[in-house]
């Protein structure tokens, strides 16, 4: 592979690749982790075999990163017609090839349909049509394992512009004017960080990509690193040029094997092309990148802890008397940004600050990627302008709730965030509005909950998570979270005490004021936000031993209605602890002393009978049986 020695070399290569891409049909198959789990590898094999069999040589198959609509994977888009097939199986490939590839016809039962209307083109599907996809735009067209593909889409042109047309100071000014704020959750102005690192006296500086993405329920960074790793690398290069760094690092969690693989390959290809190394594109700028694989610790996503981990120490936070921009990695000035923040940088430098801030609100500019998951119909990755409302995201894009259930809350901000109830569905999603509602933007997890989700259990879930993940270095976090956890675990078991809620609030104050790092100081947020909006549920658990969501095992009981049970025996055969008794063709009964409340009986009871029900409080069952 020849090195690119100038901006002109890069432009020539772009033209060559773009010219080649124009010809013929391209089939873009999502091979992100989600579609991979749904079998995209087998679809790819079937596709390759079918094309070979028919001798279709001018058809290109691209294995791309995540297209976003993970609920309906594997996803296959046929370009240039943009016909988008969902839930594709290997068996359907011959039909797709003969109808669509050879004859331009649509296989109707594989496209999105809503209310009798067909949405064959990718951009028409409501899930995509209501988004504003900038960062994710290229995920549907790029082969992430081929640097030429990225260059063909205009990749690395922003780097060339920065190196040859802008001073480092001008790059920082452009980022400032764009109003870019950190996408990892904090929302700190990126330009301010860069400026501080640039102006630090030490000549050795570092730039780091935070790809730890430890928030459960969030996979934005994973999909960027898997689907478009060069966009992150190009952002890092531009940042390094702006702050004056010659060395950078990707920190990526080991739970993301494909992201690691694609980032490694991207770096190797950039080196071969001369986009990393000495005198990049013939400029005086030299830069190198290493990868550090995380080893599984949520707290290591905290900035100071992450740098400790890169140095080979345990990833525990340090006290930040001195800012990282003055003394970070190995005591040198360091700029650390989240994956998505870095991926925005090339867009800003290529298209300008005004273009960037044309989306979003005055204080939160640009777009943001969210992982829209949980009990919503269309789960997946969505990118919207900052300031879009929760309603637009959950209902217009997400298609509303699954199984006709009622929306209860959406959890944002991961373990540091909170639950936002239905009355705030029209709130704008930006850094400041969400904070005002007692939650936070966080890195972009958006977990939708319905009536079956117990808010006390959700609070308990996050507190238990943080208890496990607290590094234990500072006492308020170690003991405070542990105490909160034992209180909440008592409440969900029906052993809550009347003054528990006051005590939880006291601990919350202690945690927020006395903890060493963000993990502890924000740890009470899930509890406080659920107490704020769902206090009644806590009180029901404590005083009536009732879980209205029927989620807390200790507070529920399963019951077989004798009048509805036909004695088919399905539940009896499936019950793992033999708690169900009864003979064939006569009503069955659950022995409550043996029942472990696994719910298999409810799951297997045919819906035409609907004999098994869940109820709470468990004591209501006794009343029922007396009748």
């Amino acid at each position, binding site marked *: 592979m020849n090195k690119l020695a100038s901006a002109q070399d890069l432009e020539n290569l772009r033209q060559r690749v773009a010219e080649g891409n124009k010809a013929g049909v391209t089939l873009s198959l999502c091979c992100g*982790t*989600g579609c*991979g*789990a*749904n079998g995209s590898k087998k679809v790819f094999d079937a596709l390759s075999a079918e094309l070979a069999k028919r001798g279709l040589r001018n058809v290109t198959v691209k294995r791309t990163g995540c297209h976003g609509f*993970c*609920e309906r994977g594997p996803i296959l888009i046929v370009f240039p017609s943009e016909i988008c097939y969902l839930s594709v199986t290997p068996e359907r490939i011959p039909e797709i090839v003969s109808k669509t590839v050879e004859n331009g016809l649509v296989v109707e039962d594989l496209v999105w349909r809503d209310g009798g209307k067909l949405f064959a083109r990718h951009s028409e599907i409501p899930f995509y049509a209501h988004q504003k996809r900038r960062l994710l735009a290229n995920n549907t067209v790029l082969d992430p394992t081929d640097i030429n593909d990225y260059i063909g889409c205009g990749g690395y042109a922003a780097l060339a512009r920065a190196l040859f047309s802008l001073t480092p100071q001008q790059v920082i000014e452009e980022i400032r004017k764009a109003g870019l704020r950190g996408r990892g959750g904090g929302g700190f102005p990126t330009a301010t960080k860069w400026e501080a690192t640039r102006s630090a006296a030490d000549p050795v500086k570092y730039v780091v990509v935070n790809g730890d*993405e*430890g*928030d*459960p*329920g*969030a*996979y934005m960074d*994973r999909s960027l690193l898997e689907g478009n790793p060069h966009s992150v690398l190009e952002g890092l290069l531009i940042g390094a040029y702006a702050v004056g760094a010659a060395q950078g690092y990707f920190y990526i969690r*080991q*739970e*993301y*094997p494909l992201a690691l693989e694609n980032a490694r390959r991207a770096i190797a290809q950039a080196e071969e092309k001369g986009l990393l190394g000495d005198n990049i594109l013939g400029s005086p700028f030299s830069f190198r990148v290493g990868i*550090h*694989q995380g*080893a*599984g*610790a*949520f707290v290591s996503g905290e900035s100071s802890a992450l740098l400790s*981990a*890169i*140095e*080979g*120490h*345990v*990833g*525990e936070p340090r006290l930040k008397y001195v800012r990282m921009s003055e003394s970070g990695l190995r005591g040198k000035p360091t700029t650390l940004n989240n994956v998505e923040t870095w991926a925005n940088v090339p867009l800003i430098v290529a298209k300008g600050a005004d273009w960037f801030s044309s989306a979003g609100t005055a204080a939160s500019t640009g777009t943001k990627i969210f*992982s829209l*998951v*949980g*009990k919503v119909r269309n*789960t*997946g*990755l969505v990118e919207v302008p900052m300031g879009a409302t929760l309603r637009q995201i959950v209902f217009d894009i997400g298609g509303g709730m699954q199984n006709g259930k009622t929306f209860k809350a959406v*959890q944002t901000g*991961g373990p540091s965030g909170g639950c936002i109830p239905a009355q705030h569905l029209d709130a704008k999603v930006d850094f400041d509005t969400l904070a005002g509602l007692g939650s936070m933007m966080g890195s972009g*997890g958006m*977990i939708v*909950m319905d009536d079956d*989700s117990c808010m006390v259990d*959700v609070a308990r*879930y*996050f507190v238990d*998570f943080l208890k*496990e*993940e607290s*590094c234990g270095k500072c006492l308020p976090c170690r003991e405070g979270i542990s105490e909160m956890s034992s209180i909440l675990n008592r409440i969900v078991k029906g052993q809550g005490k009347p003054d528990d809620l006051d005590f939880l609030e006291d601990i919350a104050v202690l945690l927020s004021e006395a903890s060493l790092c963000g993990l502890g100081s924000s740890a009470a947020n899930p509890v406080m936000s659920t107490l704020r909006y769902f206090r009644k549920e806590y009180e029901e658990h404590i005083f009536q031993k009732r879980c209205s969501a029927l989620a807390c095992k200790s507070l529920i009981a399963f019951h077989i209605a004798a009048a509805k049970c036909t004695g088919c025996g399905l539940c009896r055969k*499936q019950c*793992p602890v033999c708690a169900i008794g009864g003979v064939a063709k006569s009503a069955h009964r659950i022995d409550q002393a043996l029942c*472990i409340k*696994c*719910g*298999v009986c409810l799951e297997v009871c045919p819906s035409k009978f609907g004999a098994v029900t869940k109820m709470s409080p468990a004591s209501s069952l006794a009343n029922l049986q007396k009748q």
Partner: protein
Amino acid sequence: MTDDGASAFALVDKIINRYGGERGTLIQILLDVQKENRWLSGESLEHIAERLHVPLPRVYEIATFYKAFSLTERGRHLVTVCLGTACHVRGAPTLLDRISRKLGVKSGGTSSDGRFTLLTVNCMGCCALGPVIAIDESYFSNPSNSDFDRILGQYK
């Protein structure tokens, strides 16, 4: 060191050499050894400490701090149940209970035939497919009871 000892650590040495024997790469070395051997034996930790000139307690500090490392021998295949938020609200705890009963072990345990070790993880980033499990590096979305039996049968 005897010949036997040398061959026992050949793999570990190869990994250390790949990183140029540099101390700062300790975590990366441990990750690679863990991946190859599926666990970190006391002997291998001692060997790594010696080679990198790092005190043994520091190696243990790292090996016990991070979740990725196991100081006990694991089964031939790893069954990982995701307990991320999205999986949690879609029933991951119940799925974990069922799998745990099927394998006859609690989280962290290895089945008596040595085939499977059951693990939990806070998020695998497959949130849209929740609840999700992984067996080694293959992912499965919300397997039913009978799916799970069939899937397990594929692993010897």
